């Protein structure tokens, strides 16, 4: 299962974090710092999966952003790797060419999208239209 999803910028600052297993707020910073250390300084030609303590990190790099997902041993790394890409594609469709600033200024919406895709650490929806449907309805409501 998925333990957490993190979005980090190149400097290692957290731009979005979602934990699916309780981690105290105070401990998160330390964990995220560890994640930065294990993922951000790797070469492009190195493996996108990193072992971290008793679980694994799957990371993917997009321009100025890194998305890192913590998963348990039983999870399929490659499917998570592609899930990250699916998530980015959904964001891209919603924000039409998503950028780091889009994510920062619309953190709530990014969370809403993520909530549609992952729940309790499991992939619950990957159909892009369906992922975006609730948010699109909310937007129409707000506009009217």
């Amino acid at each position, binding site marked *: 299962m998925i333990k957490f999803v993190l979005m980090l910028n190149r400097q290692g*600052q*957290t731009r*979005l*974090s979602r934990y699916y297993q*309780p981690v105290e*707020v*105070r401990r*998160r*910073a330390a964990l995220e710092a560890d994640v930065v250390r294990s993922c951000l300084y790797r070469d492009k*030609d*190195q*493996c*996108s*999966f*990193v*072992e*971290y*303590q*008793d679980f694994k990190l799957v990371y993917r790099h997009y321009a100025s952003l890194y998305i890192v997902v913590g998963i348990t041993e039983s999870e*399929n*790394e*490659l*499917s998570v*790797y*592609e899930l990250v890409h*699916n998530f980015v594609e959904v964001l891209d469709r*919603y*924000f*039409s*060419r998503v950028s780091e*600033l*889009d994510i*920062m*200024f*619309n*953190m*709530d919406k990014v*969370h*809403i999208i993520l*909530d*549609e895709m992952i*729940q*309790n650490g*499991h*992939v*619950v*929806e*990957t*159909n*892009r*239209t*369906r992922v975006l*449907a*609730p948010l699109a*309805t*909310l*937007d129409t*409501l*707000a*506009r009217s």
Partner: protein
Amino acid sequence: MSDVVEKTLTALPSLLSLDSQSGKLSSSSKLGNLIRGITELTSKHDEEKLIQRELVSIKEQVSSPNTSMRQMKELMVRAIYCEMLGYEASFSYIHAIKLAQQGTALDKRVGYLAVSLFLNESDELLLLLVNTVLKDLQSTNLIEVCMALTVVGQIFPKDMIPAVLPLVEEKLTHPKEIIRRKAVLALYKFYLIAPNQVQHIHSKFRKALCDKDPGVMSASLHIYFEMVKEKPEGYKDLTGSFVTILKQVVGGKLPIDFNYHSVPAPWLQIQLLRILSLLGKNDRSMSELMYEVLDESLRRAEMNHNITYAILFECVKTIYTIHPKAELLEKAAKCIGNFVLSPKINLKYLGLKALTYVVQQDANLALQHQMTIIECLDHSDLIIKRETLELLFRITNSQNVKVIVEKLLEFLRQSKDDYITIDLGGKMQPDIPNSFLRLLSEGFDSVEENRQLRLLAVESYLSLLQDRPAKLSQRFLQVISWVLGEYSHLKEGLEPVTVLRLLAPLLDLRQSSTETKSWALTAMTKLCDGPACVSVAQELADRHGGSLDTVLRQRLHELQHLAAHPELRTRVLPRNVGLEPLEVDSSLSFLDGFVSEALAAGAAPYKPPHQRQEELAQEKALSVEPYGLSLPLSMSNCSVAERPYPTALSTSSGLSGNSTELSHKGGSGALKLEGVKRVWGKEGYLTQTEAAVPMEEMAQVEADREKQQLASSLFVGLGSLSSTGLCLMGKAEPTPHRFRRRAKGQGSSSGTSERSSPDSGSVPPHVDSAPHLPLDLPANNGAQEDLGEDMSASLIETNGMAVVDPDTYIDLHDPDHVHLISSLPGELSALPRSEITPLCSHASLALSACHVQTDRSALLVVFVANTSDSAARRFVLRMTSGDLEYSLIPSRPSVHMELAGVASYQLPDGEPQSTQFSYTLSLTDFIRPLTVSTEEYGRLWLAFSNDTKQNLRLLSEGPDPLRDTLGLLRDKLQVHIVDIIASEGIVACQLLQGQPCLMHCRVNAGCLAVWLRSSLPELPDCLLYHCQRALAEH
């Protein structure tokens, strides 16, 4: 005016953002400011300053009454930012709940979002959300229903599930797919946190699985995955359905928008494959159903995209998990080859992972890819290397162990990650410390060689300690401590005090674990000889006596005492005993007297925390027999109670006090008790003498066997020793102790209402209005009904279990109920029964009742009398009870059990009437003797964890107080006396459904010290109450 400006300013950007959708907030908004602040941060210090300022500002604003919901939403996003950066904003939690409650549309959604981000599952604030969720679930606005279901699926207080469950269930039939899907996901959440709560809706899960919408169906797979994982045999009938679904998905039957890079619903495929692998594991017939679709999956996934490889990986795993089929295995192996040989590093990694998974079945596969593996071993990426080592570890055999260990060591030298080091280190030397200590203590055939080896060990360890002990690993330090404690006397001219002074610093090392410190202290205790040592011991006691660690304090205490009493020390810690067997009275029965005294003095009875066994089981990692040597020898051996106390005794020692008892126990596999002294045998109490005889022979045989094991473990490289000692460690499965009731025959015609006992599995868990008896009463008569105990399931169907005997006419004006008794059915009149007590009388109706005890049930007989002259019509009797299920089965034991009911009837000329009554039953009505042998008693005793100890009054008038007292309890409470030996007795009884309660009694200081154990937590206490009462009434 500033307010107005602010409002406009905050409203403006969000309006703008809606237009452009990509939404860049104007930087003048507060959120904009914060974000700009965050992006411009240069140091941790700046960040802290910024966020603290932000928190103050948020705090101010959230509590202001003028804050609009839109502003509140922004405030919540700001608070989320603060928490994300690691600064708690707990003051905002309550406002998040408020926003979810009062906001609309997006504001409300953000409120819910903030709640799910801020709060923990166990947070009490969550309870405040329940009403909002309930309201939104009933809303006509779909988007609100949707939000509520989303949050329920993420975070919900376990205790409140019943409140929303009906509403969520209702949504399963909603016309909108998204609502149905979210409802299923909410139920999935419920299943995760409280599986029992959703047990009754399994049929609805099946409906969700067959939903015409693929989204709803795939949501239900999450539940099925969990359920199948839990109990694969329960869902085998669904294998066909899962296979069909997968076939359709693979065949591209889903709408096109489920595709990801032209692959149909890949994550759904993966989920299905996982479920199939669970269902097909060790099941040939199920596996056969899957072969075709697995083959097709392999064939279809030809596209060169990561996601197809992810599916392939899962497919290969499934093929290697289920019952094998040669053709498929071959294809899967080829597939793994593609992974391993791929130039893409991620695929290579996955290939190695797959190989690691499959080599356990087929080591030849690794041979095929030898060269690749060797390449990977020298790969520049440590992660690949690490995975390769993992693979090598799995294929280690006697020929290659040396090479593989070399490679592992090489890797360890490079690796800087402690975690990996420990993980790999643990693999490499599964039990080296154990094996080494065994080698040292058992030795070779030659005495001289033994001495030399031990001396060598002592010398090298001494020099290590003199150097820098802080660098050594914990386990190594433990080994050093033991060896020095045992053998340092071999080195001539070495003063014990020197060793003591070398070991003492270990206590000061910050990184030393309690375990290591204990080992060091035990070693010191062994060596502590002479005045110099005593002063060192004193020094240590002064320095560490104040430690918060109780284990450490205990060891220090021992050290001090044994140092002061050399003759006691030689008895407790004899030198040079080698692997002589130890007898450990693990039940600590020698403390019984102490315990009873303490109890008599008013101490609280000891309740064993269940986690204690688990905690101790964790320490088993180093289960070294020689450690047993340092355990005290002088424990007495008299107790019925053998508790699986996780000492470091190995099962293989096989040295019990009574070897004859072992042979048949060995096969049970449930609880290995060899090594623990048996005091109760088939013939009763076992005398101590017979124990000594076979011991030495046994020891010899055992020692030989252990040597063989050691040899094999050294040469194969992977010892099997590590697992042998485990069964002792408390985790053993309890022996089955079900007392299954035999099914009863149909009730006879004469008035009892016994029904055949249905399979307990089919009994619904609770029925509120249990017996429900519609019948007509003839005028001026009494009728009696028996509500049997065993009517559970049939009750629901037939709705009438009472047989009325309308011919029984009774003179109701007779005050003493003699006639009522005479109207008891014949077969009940001979059984023990309670007094007939009037329940109630109302207008023309009189109710009275008594209960009758049969072997397997308690029957409640209700006498209904119509005192009027006309016939009462439509007589209905309903009974409810919180304590009893299905008429008379206690749902949980308590001292008294209340039964309440309503009787309603109608006289021909009158209004319907009703009257209430209640009836109390005592626990003793449900207690029955439990006939077990002493042997079975011992087994049961160990299986139970709920216990209570107390001192009871002893009837001291007669010549044999114990026999008298137990006899009284037998007569009054219907318990079974299993055995009485000397001053101890064991007694067993059971509650009706078969939950046993065992009682161990011991005469001690004029009192009867009883120790009760049962599978039910409440039973011992309740029974104890009745024992006390029975003795007090005597």
